[in-house]
């Protein structure tokens, strides 16, 4: 009697458990669909406009996919056949230069500064992190105008290096914070062991520190590139002549012109979006390694 009751209870519990699992799976699926739509709607709209052969159309005509999709707009961008896109590839090169330099310098300065602050056992190690983070008292956008005037006095107006300097200034504090936090997971004894074996500080930095923090460096690199790629305000204020113009500035001008060729603009936007996405995919392995470090540790 009691055995039967117990087994009935067990079956009930099992059924309840199974029903719960089905509910969780269904909930996850619904959430996944919502997130998918939420993340992709603006991207979808970009493609809709870019594939439309009519250049002035931004309206949604009720078709889920353009009836006559055409790559014409992409052709216009590739051959620079629009008045806004006359020097698209030069602008693209300018953007790329600024983005890559910001990335390289942020990684270099961030790793050196975080090493000095966290590993060199200086009494004032945290001072570096603190003063760097204090920069965020004034957000990047708030410093644009003073930055412009200061760059002018340095003789750096209309110079891409001024923009790079601005981006590096605002990317490094976060880079140092992230790298220090990550490096604090590596025991200091590793450094000591190398020093006992006769390694200099520079060797410790190059041979031990850098390889161990590679995953965090990958995150910092992408962060710096995206920061430079997202910028409009600094480039708009600091660069003036057409030969220094970047893609973000050109797109800003197009945005304000009601007669611009929207489809070409969105096609250019899609091409411009590729470098950070490609970098993300290239470095994805390292990021995954960075995120699973704790698994290896445990």
């Amino acid at each position, binding site marked *: 009697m009691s055995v039967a009751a117990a087994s009935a209870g067990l079956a009930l519990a099992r059924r309840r458990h199974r029903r719960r699992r089905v509910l969780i799976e269904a909930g996850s699926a619904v959430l996944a669909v919502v*997130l998918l739509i939420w993340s992709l709607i*603006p991207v979808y709209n970009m493609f809709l406009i870019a594939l439309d052969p009519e250049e002035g159309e931004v*309206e949604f005509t009720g078709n889920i996919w353009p009836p006559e999709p055409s790559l014409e707009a992409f052709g216009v961008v590739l051959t620079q056949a629009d008045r806004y896109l006359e020097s698209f590839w030069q602008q693209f090169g300018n953007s790329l230069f600024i983005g890559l330099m910001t990335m390289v310098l942020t990684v270099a300065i961030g790793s*050196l500064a975080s090493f000095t602050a966290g590993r060199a056992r200086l009494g004032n190690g945290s001072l570096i992190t603190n003063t760097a983070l204090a920069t965020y008292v004034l957000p990047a956008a708030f410093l644009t105008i003073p930055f412009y005037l200061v760059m002018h006095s340095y003789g750096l107006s209309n110079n891409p290096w001024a923009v790079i*300097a*601005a981006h590096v200034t605002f990317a490094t504090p976060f880079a140092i914070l992230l790298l220090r936090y990550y490096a604090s997971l590596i025991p200091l004894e590793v450094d000591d062991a190398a020093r006992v074996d006769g390694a200099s500080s520079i060797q410790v930095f190059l041979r031990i520190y850098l390889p161990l923090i590679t995953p965090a460096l990958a995150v910092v690199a992408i962060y710096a590139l995206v920061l430079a790629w997202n910028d409009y305000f600094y480039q708009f204020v600091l660069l003036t002549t057409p030969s220094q113009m970047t893609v973000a500035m050109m797109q800003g001008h197009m945005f304000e012109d009601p007669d611009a060729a929207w489809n070409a603009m969105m096609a250019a936007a899609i091409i411009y979006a590729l470098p*950070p996405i490609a970098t993300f995919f290239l470095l994805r392995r390292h990021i995954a390694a960075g995120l699973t470090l*704790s698994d290896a540790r445990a």
Partner: protein
Amino acid sequence: MPYAAVFLAFAVYPIGYALWMGGKPSLYVELIDDPLYLRTAVNTLLFAGLGVNLQMFLALLLSGFFMRRRWWIRALLVIYILPWALPAVQAFTSVHWILIGEMGLVNRLLEELFGIEGPMWFSHWGLAFGANVASYIWKWMPFWTLIFIAGRMMIPKELLEAAAIDGATDSRRFVHITVPLLASLYLVCTLLATAWAIGEFNTVFFVSNGSPVMSTEVLATLGFRYTFDSAKPALGVAAMMSALPVLIPIVILLLRRIQTREVQL
């Protein structure tokens, strides 16, 4: 010490210059007299408060969802990160067009699917402001979700397994293990994100562009208009400097939090 030199030249000097430029009290009198300024200051606080808290809370919950080991959830993560990697100007322009007029994507879909006539998004303060906040969350939530995923991965698995064996349900494990262990990270990220959101420019400039009639401006875009449309750079800088009373406590709190955390480690 290369960083020290760069830091002095490109951070300390411009900040000092900014303080000097925005230092005249008369500028603040002019600001207070401008009704647009007060409205903008309130907008900025609302934007940062609402945007950051919503985004952080959702990111914390979603990081748990993305910890599930299913192939389709991992694939979804790659798409979910996409908005963060997309260039801001273009993405926000696209959002602007999705919402604009009667023929934007959202309004057309509302009409086709449900027969509802969609509102004019940029003619109502609330809708335009909401569009800005939503776009900001769209762009930045993936970044913070990644940070929280990394944080969750640092939680020793034994801890969660032990709790599971003792019969703790998912929600109880979240409340009693995940939340206390991530609280410090959550606070640091929220402070950092708030400081950044107060200075946000791209979202408002490209999504609502201030409409209706400059009522959704934030301090960064208002400073831009003072400087370039009314040719008053000093007033523009002063408008931005007026956020200092809010920003300084945030950064001090942030620095304190980071120090206590280093002691814990």
